[in-house]
């Protein structure tokens, strides 16, 4: 009998221990950024350590990130204190984010704060860190740069010549492009290729200048490694030397510089007839309406904007600060290489910034898909450029109307949904 009672008590204790979750003291920072294992380690050890009480930093893939947040919103209660994500990730949650106007974010520039409003009147997210895309080349490829070309001020034509020369000299295509499933190729078309030729992302989507842009890219594609449809992180192929010249996000080429700093050089994206177009990547922090402790969440947001935190974040993730601050000298090789290249690109005389899409809400993914599909049909499937652009323009037009999103830079501002001419 006694044994039975003991057994029963043990069973109860075990069941209870299986059922209870732990007591939450640290706020949960639910993020899609700093996922690579070394980055999240540094986030936890170096960046989050300074917050009183500590922070539970959990990076996730987009799927689980979104599903968990949606579940908490539907259930009406949750454990997520602060959300971290790219502009695109946070746009889809717009309506459920708390207004952050109370936070002191004067050190962040007004243009970026504007992005953080997600088209509404409130401050839905505060910019947390920024990055952009760069070109990287193996030093071995430098000998094939065309006569008279300066890699810090290339044009697309010069880039194509360079890629061709390298391919011919080495016996195989050596240009790399992240056309893989996790690759950020759509940002290249939205923010770099098309604006450089058409001075627009949306309105001039099917103009004749856009046709020229795609023809140029088709030329460049001849010298691109055909396995590019598997590439999501150019640092891998740069280090194995499958690829000698590449375009990718600064955080996805960092490892190449950190492993072999003397073998690679970073330089700005090329320029087209309309200018040197580039697109900044913004990651933001937001607070969901189901956050368990609003005060704690706000304090954490404020903490992420401190200069020390911003610099530590730079060391951890290769994403640059959103506030103006002096960088110390002991930055990792990737930052030291990327910094000057980014400055050269953003400060160039013909610099043409193309902003992230605004006001698309949860249609951001479908917007990106238009450009991805255009790429796949024109470049991979070899279809007629004019036909594809006309087809896809229909889709784009319908999307802009459905989202009711006005134009954003570099497109001219519009009344009502952004038109596709």
């Amino acid at each position, binding site marked *: 009998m006694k044994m039975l009672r003991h057994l029963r008590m043990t069973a109860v204790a075990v069941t209870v221990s299986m059922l209870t979750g732990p007591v939450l003291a640290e706020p949960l920072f639910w993020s899609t950024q700093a996922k690579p294992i070394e980055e999240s380690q540094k986030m936890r050890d170096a960046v989050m350590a300074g917050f009183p009480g500590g922070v539970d930093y959990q990076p996730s893939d987009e799927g689980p990130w979104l599903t968990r947040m949606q*579940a908490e919103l539907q259930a009406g209660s949750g454990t997520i204190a602060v959300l971290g994500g790219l502009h695109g990730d946070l746009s889809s949650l717009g309506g459920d984010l708390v207004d952050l106007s109370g936070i002191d974010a004067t050190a962040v520039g007004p243009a970026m704060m504007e992005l953080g409003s997600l088209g509404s009147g409130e401050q839905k997210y505060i910019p947390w860190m920024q990055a952009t895309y760069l070109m990287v080349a193996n030093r071995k490829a430098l000998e094939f740069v065309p006569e008279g070309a300066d890699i810090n001020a290339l044009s697309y034509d010069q880039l194509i010549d360079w890629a061709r020369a390298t391919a011919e000299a080495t016996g195989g295509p050596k240009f790399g492009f992240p056309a893989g499933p996790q690759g950020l190729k759509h940002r290249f078309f939205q923010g770099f290729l098309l604006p450089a030729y058409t001075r627009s992302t949306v309105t001039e989507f099917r103009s004749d200048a856009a046709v020229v842009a795609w023809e140029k890219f088709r030329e460049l594609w001849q010298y691109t490694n055909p396995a590019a449809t598997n590439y999501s992180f150019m640092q*891998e192929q740069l280090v*194995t030397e499958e690829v000698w010249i590449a375009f990718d996000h600064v955080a996805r080429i960092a490892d190449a510089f950190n492993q072999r700093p003397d073998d690679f050089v970073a330089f700005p994206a090329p320029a087209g007839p309309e200018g040197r177009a580039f697109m900044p990547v913004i990651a933001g922090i937001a607070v969901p309406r189901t956050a368990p402790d609003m005060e704690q969440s706000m304090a954490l947001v404020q903490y992420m904007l401190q200069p020390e935190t911003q610099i530590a974040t730079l060391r951890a993730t290769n994403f640059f600060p959103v506030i103006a601050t002096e960088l110390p000298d002991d930055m990792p090789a990737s930052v030291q290489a990327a910094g000057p290249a980014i400055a050269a690109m953003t400060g160039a005389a013909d610099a043409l910034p193309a902003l992230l899409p605004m006001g698309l809400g949860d249609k951001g993914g479908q917007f990106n898909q238009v450009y991805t599909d255009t790429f796949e049909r024109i470049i991979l499937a070899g279809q007629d450029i004019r036909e594809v652009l006309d087809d896809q323009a229909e889709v784009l037009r319908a999307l802009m109307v459905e989202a009711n999103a006005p134009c954003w830079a570099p497109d001219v501002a519009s009344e009502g949904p952004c038109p596709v001419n």
Partner: protein
Amino acid sequence: MSAPSVRRAGDRVFVAGVALLILWVLLPIWLLFVNALSAPAEVTAFPKRFIPSFDLASLSFFFGFSGVLDALWNSVRVAAVTMILSIGVGAPAGYALSRFDFPGKEAFRFLVVMTRAFPLPLLALPLAVMFIRTGLDDTILGLALVHTTLALPFAVLITYSLFSGIPLELEEAAWTLGCNRVQAFIKVILPLAAPGIAASAVFAFVISWNEVFAAAVLTVENRTLTAFLLQSLDVSPLPLKFAGGAALVLPALFFIFAVRKYLFAMWGIANR
């Protein structure tokens, strides 16, 4: 050719066939460990070496990663509960399917099979909402319940196929010898069905161990190893991907090693 030499030739073919199959299975595992145990520079070099250089840099980073041991323990607990639940719930159902004929039998079998045919990431959202509302969120038991649902089809169908192979006469003989139904089941059927139980346990463990999506959504503080690591590994530098992949596979390999004997029936008892 004389009979013995035909047999010898046949044996040689047999041995060659077995050797080939073993090579086929082991080669990719070997390569996984080669990359996991090599220096990062070698992992990204060309041509690749086929022998590891026993450089523990990647693996030691991996194991030094804070939170790995907790996550490992969580994974073990979830897998253990999944095993117990899936066999405890699935074996009786498998027995019922094999021994009885009743209305609803086909419908039930269908339901069991269809559970596996629907993509889990879509079910994760309603499940997470339900768990948050009922307090099962972020618990070992909660995740184990989801994993059991994934493993149940295996447990039910495998035990069903095994019970089907055990003649009813054996049970009936036990009844006539004075056992009641339960005793007959435990003393006669269960030992014979041990391979089915073992196979179900293997599947339950492996399914639970390797499951990522539900674990990533349903656990926050009590993260399992896959939720904690696999998402990070996907975007990490190549050497760490291999180190992580190798480390994740080891516990499963140990478990299968431990139960391998039980996958065989007890010879002699099956013969009448």
